[in-house]
């Protein structure tokens, strides 16, 4: 078994052991769940250690036939982008599991089983190189998340769970149509059925067909991200999900959408991806998401809902970076996907800490928490600053790089997106002020215990990670540099050559990009 398969299936093996523990042994189940999460993280380490940064292709590749008649394979492998997201998944799993210790007392065994199943699904999504395998993992993720929200969620859990399920399922079905189109197109061209991504790369498709497939995949990915206007499942799912569910949802699940754009839409459909209309629509939706999400944050009265909408805004930056279609935009987007996982994960954990103590998410119920909970106030401040993109913390690196890329693509887009940076500071600081600063006005907040050592242990890895990325992001950039370059080279061949004669204005507008391609590389 390759190290990648080992990393992928470790949570499932742990799940098998978990199921063997009797349901009455709650402590043993909790302990084993945490050990499992750590084992899952440990299983990622050999991948990180053995990863070759100079290689832009897929590594730790493993393939075996699965459904030979249709060419479906068990085909897995990672590049820098997917490995980074797998590492994020593993760390998030550790944090989410540990954070659930006291929060979940009901159906403990089933709960942790769902978490482990979820982990397998998420890792599988990032590791798959076969479209059907990818689709299976993609759908697998849906099931445990549905139950996490529907069983262990808040008051409106059934509504939220169903909404989440139906929304994503709608997207998935359209996505499947897109996948099948690619499959049949390839079959008719080469005579051999396959779902392998690298084989599909060689496909030649008429532009109109690329466009249709692009939009089909787009619906699937855009709902997952979520991009405006497909975002309304998110606030409900986030708000009703248990803390660990929100953390995983924000940190990893949303990234499946952006990852889909990077792994499939751009490389498989390069002509559609650079099409003027498509780029304009996607950049437009991204910017709308950034500003819209931020403005809606300003009127939220529910702490968790506010954080949920902030995700819409932050993910808008991620998709803006992707559809800048240049190295810094895309690299910044990958960095920001990681950063958002860390900072928004922390923000949800922060809400969870307070929800466990007070069982309310109403912002107006709080105020002056810093007096009794100084440690909490400090950790919360780090989360806020990281999310607001303060330099020396992680968020800045991603935002800064995305904005540089966006600026290269369209000065107007970058100038609009930068307003989101202002609004981001506004809603986060206002949230912090209303909950944490000021006098204690509600006596229920007067005797709250500060963070316990376990809770500190939940936050510590994220805070440390946030600083390390903010101070020294170079290793991360090195990891993703080559895969990003491959994507850019695929969409815009000849990008990495000097073009001293290119008119300066060509860079201002993505609309002019096809002209550049024509000049640099000719027809594909």
């Amino acid at each position, binding site marked *: 078994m390759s190290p990648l398969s080992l990393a992928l299936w470790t949570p499932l093996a742990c799940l098998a052991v978990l199921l063997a523990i009797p349901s009455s042994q709650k402590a043993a189940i909790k302990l084993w769940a945490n050990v499992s999460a750590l084992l899952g993280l440990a299983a990622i380490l050999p991948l990180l250690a053995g990863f070759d940064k100079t290689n832009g292709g897929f590594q730790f590749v493993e393939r075996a036939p699965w459904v030979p008649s249709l060419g479906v394979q068990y085909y897995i492998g990672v590049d820098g982008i997917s490995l980074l997201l797998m590492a994020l998944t593993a760390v998030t799993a550790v944090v989410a599991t540990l954070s659930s210790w006291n929060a979940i007392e009901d159906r403990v065994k089933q709960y942790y089983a769902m978490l482990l199943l979820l982990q397998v699904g998420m890792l599988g999504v990032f590791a798959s190189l076969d479209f059907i395998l990818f689709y299976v993992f993609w759908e697998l993720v849906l099931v445990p998340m549905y139950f996490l929200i529907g069983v262990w969620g808040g008051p409106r859990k059934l509504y939220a769970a169903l909404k989440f399920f139906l929304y994503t399922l709608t997207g998935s079905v359209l996505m499947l149509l897109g996948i099948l189109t690619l499959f049949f197109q390839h079959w008719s061209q080469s005579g051999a059925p396959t779902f392998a991504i690298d084989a599909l790369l060689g496909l030649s498709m008429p532009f109109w067909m690329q466009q249709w497939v692009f939009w089909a995949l787009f619906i699937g990915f855009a709902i997952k991200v979520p991009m405006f206007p497909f975002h309304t499942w998110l606030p409900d799912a986030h708000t009703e999900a248990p803390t660990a569910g929100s953390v995983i949802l924000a940190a990893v699940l949303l990234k499946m959408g952006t990852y889909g754009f990077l792994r499939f839409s751009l490389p498989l459909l390069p002509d559609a991806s650079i099409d003027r209309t498509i780029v304009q629509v996607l950049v437009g939706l991204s910017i709308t998401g950034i500003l819209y999400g931020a403005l*809606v944050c300003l*009127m939220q009265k529910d702490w968790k809902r506010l954080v949920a909408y902030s995700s819409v805004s932050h993910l808008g930056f991620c998709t803006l970076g992707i559809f800048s279609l240049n190295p810094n935009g895309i690299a910044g987007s990958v960095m920001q996907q990681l950063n958002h996982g860390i900072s928004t994960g922390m923000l949800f954990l922060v809400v969870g800490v307070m929800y466990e103590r007070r069982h309310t998410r109403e912002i107006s119920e709080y105020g002056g928490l810093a007096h009794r909970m100084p440690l909490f106030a400090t950790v919360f401040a780090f989360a806020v600053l990281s999310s607001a993109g303060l330099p020396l913390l992680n968020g800045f690196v991603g935002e800064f790089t995305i*904005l540089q*890329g966006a600026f290269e693509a369209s000065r107007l887009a970058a100038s609009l997106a930068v307003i989101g940076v202002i609004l981001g500071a506004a809603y986060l600081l206002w949230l912090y002020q209303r909950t944490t600063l*000021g006098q204690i006005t509600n006596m229920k907040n007067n005797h709250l215990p500060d963070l316990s050592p376990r809770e500190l242990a939940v936050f510590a890895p994220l805070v440390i990670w946030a600083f390390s990325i903010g101070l020294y992001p*170079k290793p991360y950039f090195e990891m993703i540099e080559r895969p990003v370059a491959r994507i850019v080279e695929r969409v815009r061949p000849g990008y990495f050559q000097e073009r001293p004669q290119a008119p300066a204005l060509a860079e201002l507008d993505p609309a002019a990009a096809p002209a550049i391609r024509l000049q640099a590389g000719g027809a594909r």
Partner: protein
Amino acid sequence: MNFLDLIWLIPLFPLAGAAAMLLIGRRLDPQGASAVALAHGLGEPEAHGHHHHPFASTRRLIAYLSPGAVLLSFLFSMGAVVQLASLEHRSHEVVLYTWISGLPFHTATGALSTFTADWGFLLDPLSSVMILVITGIGFLIHIYATGYMAHDGGYYRFFGYLNLFVFFMLTLVLANNYALLFAGWEGVGLCSYLLIGFYFHKKSASDAANKAFIVNRVGDAGFLIGMFLLLSLTGTLRFTQMNELLTSGAFTAETAGFGALSVAALCLFAGATGKSAQLPLYVWLPDAMEGPTPVSALIHAATMVTAGVYMVARSHVLYALTPETSAIVMGTGAVTAILAASIALVQNDIKRVLAYSTVSQLGFMFMAAGAGAYWVAVFHLYTHAFFKALLFLGSGSVIHAMSGEQDMRRMGALKDKIPTTFRTMFAGSVAIAGIPGLAGFFSKDEILWQVFSSPGGSLAVYAVGLITAAMTAFYMWRLMFMTFYGEPRMDAETARRIHESPASMTLPLVVLAAGSVVAGWIGAPKLWSFLPDSFRAFEHWLMPVFTHGAPRAAAGHEAAHHDAGLEWALMALSVAIALGGILLARSLYGNRWTVDPIESLTGPLHKPLRNKWYVDEVYTFLFIDGLAKGGGRLLGVFDRGVIDGGVNGSGWLARFASRVSIWWDTWIIDGAIRLSALLAQAASFPMRLAQTGQVQTYATVFLLGVALFLGWRWFA
């Protein structure tokens, strides 16, 4: 020891101090923020009087550690600057590592470049002035704060933030590229936020902190765009490389008219208007006075707010190439200077007068920078750091003596009760008013002269500057007369408790007062040709920075000294106007008064002035209530109603359709089947009557049938 290669240590000492304070400070000073701060009520010190603090000995450790870290930075800065002077080109760069290591991108000309920024430091005469001001004056303010904050909760937290601020500020001025400068820029903004909101239990304090951070973010957005535009034009963020490219003449196309470079310069200046509190973003600074007074002195007077001036001076090659933007800089500075000074005329809160004064003086600095006289801007920055830090610390000492009172209408006649504070503030007020021989005179007069005479200057701006100078003299001396002269106007209890501040507070005042007196003598006017050249050391020290690629400023300087008679006349005019301001203040406030004489002096303007020209109200209406709250609420309704309404609507539609289907299924399809069954049932009803299931009945019917049949056969 080679201090030049160790300049990276200069910001590191305060960072280590901050880390120590914030990580283990709680243990040293366990009576943390909350308990004491809550007991304080208003938050300003003195509520406790002079009792011994239970953790006095561990607090002393903080009181040594925190200023000590800044002192170390100061010593290393001195060493580095001395060694810098012996370098021929007076510039030294130290790169620690690559910080932002982005990917390749295309510049506006299509060339391929890479998006990187080092964690690198540049020491040249410009940054050397800045680090000496920051660490020198910073050290004095730290000392002052050990006394001022002695009775406050969260001692460790205060000094942790203060040290952190010094770290970021030093990073800002030592950075060798825009990205790292921006990191320091945002970092000082964060520390400003933390320290304005230091008394976080007060709503007004956290409101002011939020306002400062968010208003600054507006400017920072402009800064970011300007940075990307420069990067796109030149392919680099590093100052030395960028300046070389800009001076190479490759950008003549962009500088013709209001080109891309002008836009870039304007965007950077937008950042400066935030940090340095200029129009239209100055509104946060007066509110920032919610922070403890040492913070006002260090961050909101002497150092952080000058970061914008520093940044423009650092980008002098860019601004020299973009005369239109430079004119905007100068104009903005002038309008801000007079607007803020006019508001300062009528304020009664001692710290607010000084806050508006700071906004106004920063306007003077931008007037100089916009006129192309960058060294003069930095010179005023340097002299201003002395006298404004002094005035703020002095006002803190006054507030300390007055048991927290900040309203000057309830002060008066303090000069003999707190003599050291009075004498030092006297020196500061003379200095800022522009009386010859003191620091403020040299720098302000040079600014006025440059604005008047240099090619980038303008007569109108000069006139504005002159009027502002008169206002400055007046409001400062109004402050002095209201506070120290005349009749005492405080209540008896407060009067009884008036006391001079401890040595830890007065000693920094004395040092700063000495600085306010003598600091200007290294920038004496060329006109005073009787003085040897060493009295003009400041300009000579900075010249290598600003002559590099800025021929306009140098040419302006040549032109500046051909008409000695005119220059003498203008100097006499500005001195006369300063004296006039002081004398007017004296005539109005020197004697007994009950109704503030400024009310009759300003007449119908008094109300708008008191209300700060209603700028805050307009901003609140437009941006807080309008854009943020209104827009947020509107979109929130849109989100719930329209978008989610659509989603829920489709869900409802699906449920409706399913109900219709069920109905159809039950009543039409199933109904048809059941109807046919019913019909069959009805039709079979008579038949069924016979089907009783009883053998006897069947037998009877059978027999009856047989009998009937046989009977029929019989009769037939």
